[in-house]
């Protein structure tokens, strides 16, 4: 089966305003794609649209994954299909502990139609072991598991928690929206190493990395770099494109594409 994520001519509006203006993008199974682009160019809009956030209205286009039209699926169905979004701004949910939430989420993935959920649920001991391992992988203290979801978390802790969730849910296609922002230098290394070792264990996992900075890409080597500008992919290249952007900024591309600098 082809497990590429295929986005065709995707147009998306927010509050009646068109933000994505025809995105064509294929994230191949097992490959790492990076998306870079100026603030406000539509990167998070793309990420939220893939995850099925109700605020983002698709007016045209298709998204295919594992033989399904993703746009027809509910957000939770997309997740259970193997899509994962690490949020740029994770949401706090008071009173819901990280451990309880992760267990419920894993069990939702394991649930089968018409089967008693107690039969498919992850055994408690197995869950605890897995959680402990993944916490260690990301250098997170075990007390994190007892804390409420993102409640009172620092910016960096939130980003780590996103990757912990990814490590626990083992998606086959992960979109990471600025997972590197808010991380200090040490945390960036730890999180990047964590992502790399998850990827090593699951080489078939596809990754779409949204970032502003080359430094993340020093750790996680992209196969392809896409540049998103004003709702369109305007350039694609290899890892060297990210270096070039870091050096020269976006104006030169804007000039080439639109014919003038901003």
């Amino acid at each position, binding site marked *: 089966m082809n497990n590429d994520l295929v986005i065709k001519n995707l147009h998306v509006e927010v509050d009646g305003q068109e933000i994505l203006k025809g995105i064509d993008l294929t994230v191949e199974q097992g490959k790492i794609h990076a998306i870079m682009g100026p603030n406000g160019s539509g990167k998070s809009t793309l990420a939220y649209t893939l*995850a099925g956030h109700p605020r983002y209205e698709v007016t045209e286009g298709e998204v295919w994954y594992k033989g399904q039209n993703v746009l027809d699926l*509910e*957000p*939770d169905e997309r997740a259970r299909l193997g899509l994962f*979004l690490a949020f740029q701004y994770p949401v706090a949910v008071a009173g819901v502990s990280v451990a309880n939430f992760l267990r419920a989420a894993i069990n939702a993935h394991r649930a089968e139609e018409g089967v008693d959920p107690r039969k498919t649920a992850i055994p408690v001991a197995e869950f605890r072991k897995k959680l402990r391992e993944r916490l260690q992988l990301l250098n997170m203290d075990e007390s994190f598991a007892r804390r409420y979801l993102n409640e009172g978390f620092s910016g960096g802790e939130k980003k780590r928690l996103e990757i912990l969730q990814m490590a626990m849910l083992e998606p086959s296609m992960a979109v990471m929206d600025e997972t590197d922002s808010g991380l200090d230098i040490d945390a960036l290394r730890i999180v990047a190493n964590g992502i790399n070792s998850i990827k090593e264990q699951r080489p078939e996992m596809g990754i779409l990395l949204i970032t502003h900075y080359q430094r993340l890409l020093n750790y996680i080597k992209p196969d392809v770099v896409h540049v998103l500008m004003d709702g369109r992919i305007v350039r694609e290249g290899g890892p060297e494109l990210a270096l070039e952007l870091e050096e020269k900024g976006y104006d030169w591309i804007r000039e080439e594409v639109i014919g003038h600098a901003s």
Partner: protein
Amino acid sequence: MPANQELPQLPAVGELLTSGLDKVLAGRTEPAWLTDNRRNAWKAFQAMEMPFWRRTNLRQFSFDLFRPTFGIAEIRFTGQEGVIVRDMQSALRERPDLMDDALGVSLDARPNKFTALHGALWQDGVFVYVPKNVVVEEPIRIVYRLPEAGAAIFPHTLVVAEPNSSVTVVEEFVSDDLSDPALCIPAADIIVNDNAEVRFLSVQSFGRNAFHIGSQFVSMRGKDSRIWWLTAALGGRVQHLEMEIYLGGNGSHADWLGVNYANEQQNLVYAPIIRHVGLHTEGSVNFRSVVDDEGYAVFDGLIKIEKGAQGTNSDLRDNALHLGPKARSDSIPGLEIDANDVKAGHGSTSGPIDPEQVFYLRSRGLPEAEALRMVVMGFISEVVDQIPVEDLHDRVVDLIAAKI
């Protein structure tokens, strides 16, 4: 106690009003002061108007049809040297001397037609007495059961904690779903002496059609006494509870938690007062309300800081979550301060469930209904997760989960 057992009953209240109370009292042997109290209460009941509580729906309510019913209390406690846990009738025969200055304080706090009827007719209940320096580890469990439609019950809990003692008392109000109205008028008097600590849990999970209208009073008359009180309103049709923690002893301390979940056509009202009287008393009141369907939850709370209560530190809040567009809640957190060296805060929030939270949980694979349930459980968990008795915690969680 099997639900179908024949229980002793009186004629309906309407009939008693004609036939009088004397016949009823003649059959009882109890201290003379109590009989006097009953006669006075009965007079008061006859003289009083129906209370007018703006936010409590008593429009279709009438006392006349309810038949006072007895024998509805169940006690679970293994026992401990010196600790008295007795049904009220036995306790009144055996140790009225330990009860007379405490019994009924809740009925005198904010008297009304309901407390008066309770005062005249009550019989069931539990007396808990913890002697000086005794720590009771095992929670004392009481279950009050509304047996059937048309019944009226008058459960009365009396707790006296002597100096340096510690105890946990749990009362649960239960019934099946009832085809017609039934009435519970509860009363609780809790007396906490010097440096004693009481944990009191009162969980109302009646079935449909139960009215739960009564009064609960905690007297923190002891120096450095501590009360931890958790109350839950989950069932019934109408609840109206007038409650007070009286912080009389210097350095006394109160932690008060509540969860109120009104759905379908439930109208569940909490009217708590925390009254600061002694020096350097502390109070924290933290309630959570959830409303759905056509439910209506009310938190009518008050911090009252009396003259001379210097060094008071008090906080009162109620946060409400609205799940349905027709559901309503009112939070009226009040503050009356007659002392100058005090710290007091109060506030409330209310609003719908945050769709970003639901989306976040769904984006991890939780179906919408489960995501909603998780957000709601999270909202009340700050209160519910503090229930120290495991089976009760699980029962409350299950009851709430079933309402979402």
